[in-house]
């Protein structure tokens, strides 16, 4: 009886956690037109706040990124503001040159809900982390 309960609990947990992770194509670098920058915003999988998918806005484009997913924002070179809002907001100004930037989205504990953060990342660390993320459909 105990073993049946354990199997059911394990199956339930697997369903819950798998249901939270994004499904999609594996990471694939994108190309940008001349004088454009690429800003990869990625969200490494974490069960914490996995039900929260606030809109991440960079320039004029806005995307809801699920846990374990990423999105490539292709923006004209120049000042770009990336913003995410939940119980608190985070905002990053980038003086974008025609190159690649990485922002990692994560959530810290809040009072009623998680606090979204957009952390500017070094390329070497981000390139490794983003490999485990899929394209946000």
């Amino acid at each position, binding site marked *: 009886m105990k073993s049946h309960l354990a199997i059911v609990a394990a199956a339930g947990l697997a369903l819950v956690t798998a249901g939270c992770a994004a499904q999609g194509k594996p990471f694939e670098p994108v190309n940008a037109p001349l004088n454009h920058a690429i800003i990869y915003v990625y969200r490494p999988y974490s069960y914490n706040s996995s039900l929260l998918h606030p809109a991440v806005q960079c320039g004029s484009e806005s995307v809801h990124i699920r846990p374990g997913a990423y999105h490539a924002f292709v923006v004209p070179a120049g000042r770009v503001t990336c913003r995410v809002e939940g119980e*608190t*907001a*985070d*905002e990053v*100004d980038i003086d974008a040159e025609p190159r690649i930037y990485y922002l990692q989205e994560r959530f*810290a*504990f809040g*009072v009623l809900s998680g606090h979204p953060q957009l*952390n500017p990342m070094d390329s070497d660390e981000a390139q490794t982390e983003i490999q485990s993320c899929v394209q946000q459909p």
Partner: protein
Amino acid sequence: MSLADNSPITFSYREELTHEEHHVPMILSAIENLAFSSHPTGEYVVTAFAALSISNGGQPIGDYTAQTRISRPYGEYSQPTHKELDDAARAAVRREIDRKLDAETTRLAASLGETE
């Protein structure tokens, strides 16, 4: 850049921001939030570096660098934005460059005067 197209005096300014984040592990954050709700659960750190070079006809007459480090904690009740920290770090490093430049005004003026 220079003040006028035909000016021999040129300025070169470079500014770099480096970001660090320190996060208390989630499990510890959860326990801390239960026990001490106002306790920080992490910290943002921004280091700003600035370098200003002044040349007169290709001859360097002033070279200034400055570095500042700004850190702010975040917690369950409040969280600064990265933009707030970036702006504060930029303002601080520019003040430091301005201060160094102010201290050199007389020498710079004399050095420019010698070449006229």
